[in-house]
């Protein structure tokens, strides 16, 4: 069982976004980076599938700048067996199709049984790479899974469908899944894991040219919301609130 987990580093979720000098991307000077939260679910899921199978290999892959080795090391410390860094200084600005194309080429060589992605990277919020990757690899894909088990070359997965329904899929491997919150609780790397990670292979190679498929004409900050207003205190303010919602906002 060979499992690939795709991870991306993204600005920490409490980052204050500033527009960069080019007017089309963010100023990364003060940014603190984290592993995309949904990708932590992907890594955890990969480790659990391997553990349940009793053998196998978990490979974490990123298209990122040289510094992204740090996030890959965290994944190795969590328990991944090896890491592959496809180096691209501009990775965080790549569009989904370009990213998926580069990842697919590298992942194809690994011949995985299972490829796990996050449902969305919380920087560009595209939610596309998993599905694009699946198409390029010629594999089926189920998105936003909240349950996963693997046996006999097949995966049983669940995802939330429309209007509160739950869809249960049976998927022949190899396949790509994208991971949603609720799938698992990612483990923390412990000291033993951190020590072990030092001896694990982390391969780096240049991603090569990454042709853009989506042009970014500009990045701007949203208009600030007008300052908040306190209608009143306690239950006494309820009637005034209802009046405002009906006659001023006209939303009820």
């Amino acid at each position, binding site marked *: 069982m060979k499992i690939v987990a795709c991870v991306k580093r993204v600005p920490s979720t409490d980052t204050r976004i500033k527009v960069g000098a080019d007017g089309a991307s963010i100023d990364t000077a003060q940014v603190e980076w984290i592993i995309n939260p949904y990708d932590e679910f992907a890594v955890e899921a990969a480790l659990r599938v391997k553990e349940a199978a009793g053998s196998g290999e978990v490979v974490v892959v990123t298209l990122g700048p040289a510094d992204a080795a740090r996030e890959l090391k965290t994944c190795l410390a969590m328990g991944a067996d090896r890491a592959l860094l496809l180096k691209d200084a501009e990775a965080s600005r790549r569009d989904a199709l370009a990213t998926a194309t580069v990842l697919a080429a590298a992942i194809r060589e690994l011949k995985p049984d299972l490829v796990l992605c996050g449902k969305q990277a*919380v920087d560009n919020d595209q939610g596309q790479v998993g*599905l694009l990757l699946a198409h390029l690899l010629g594999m089926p894909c189920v998105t936003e899974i909240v349950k996963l088990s693997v046996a006999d070359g097949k995966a049983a997965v669940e995802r939330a469908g429309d209007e*509160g329904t739950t869809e*249960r899929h049976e998927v022949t491997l190899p396949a790509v899944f994208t991971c949603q919150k609720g799938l698992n609780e990612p483990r923390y790397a412990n000291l033993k894991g951190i020590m072990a990670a030092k001896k694990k292979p982390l391969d780096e190679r240049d991603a090569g040219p990454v042709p853009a498929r*989506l042009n970014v004409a500009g990045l*701007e900050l949203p208009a600030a919301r007008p300052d*908040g207003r306190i209608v009143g205190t306690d239950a006494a303010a*309820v009637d005034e609130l209802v009046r405002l919602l009906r006659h001023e906002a006209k939303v009820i």
Partner: protein
Amino acid sequence: MAGEILVLVEQMRGALKSTALQAMTAGAQLAAAHGTTAVAVVAGEGAEQTSAALGEHGAARVIALDADTTDRTAWAAAVAGVARKLSPAAVLLAHTTLGKDLGPRIAALLDAPMASDCVAVRSEGGAIVARRPVFAGKALVHVSGANGLLVVSIRPNALSAQKSPAAGSLEREAATPPSTGLGDVLKEVIASAQKKIELTEAAIIVSGGRGLKGPENFAMIEELAGALGAAVGASRAVVDAGWRPHGEQVGQTGKTVAPQLYIAVAISGAIQHLAGMRTAKYIVAINKDPEAPIFKVADYGIVGDAFEIVPRLTAAVKALKAQG
């Protein structure tokens, strides 16, 4: 005629969701600005019944596609087949539970870039340019395809549906089967106990936070939501505590919502929560702490105890609805 705007419309037994009409409206307006016409494509049982409503909302033509809508690979392949024949300037669809799954599949089949979850789309110098939030709405980008065709999904409730009558002439089209038989089998769709309003598509949302002290107190939130015809949301603190299901989490690592009205009850307004709801048209905050950051973004705030205020609000809403 090449260069049209193709709009993939979701329907259920002949009924169109509000998000579908929003996407159709966006497509019709884009087509007018782009000097072309909008063409709707619909699939599934009842598809043909939607042509009048789609025509009213600007569809010059409505293509009823005979595709298997239980298999998304097949469905995407069928839509991509239509797109190949038409060679449109853009393919639009709503960024719903279904749309976010179908959109990238269609884009991949067409080898076209996609702009997800857009809040606006326009024609500029012959190109289709989409505006979309990034970093959970902390910034916005303007994007266009590097070489022509762009797939665009439209954020629910970001644009309103508007009528602009067009012919809406109905055509029927056989599905192009997928080129590969892929091994994804939908075994079962398990219905939930009660039919839920999809959080990301709801016009009104009532969300509860940790200040509600326990899962049992969400009955109060559900009752207010029921009175308003709203969906129930939650903060991550509440979801992590196991009080509410993951699917209800609003925020950067939950759902991004843009309803007409968002009522935050006993939620402090952490940056990651705001990220998921700051683009709501109106925000109401109920919190006992006047310094809570949620009040900075709330159009209307009430400082006080949720346990007193919420039942009163529910009663007032019920009274209002009874009056009509």
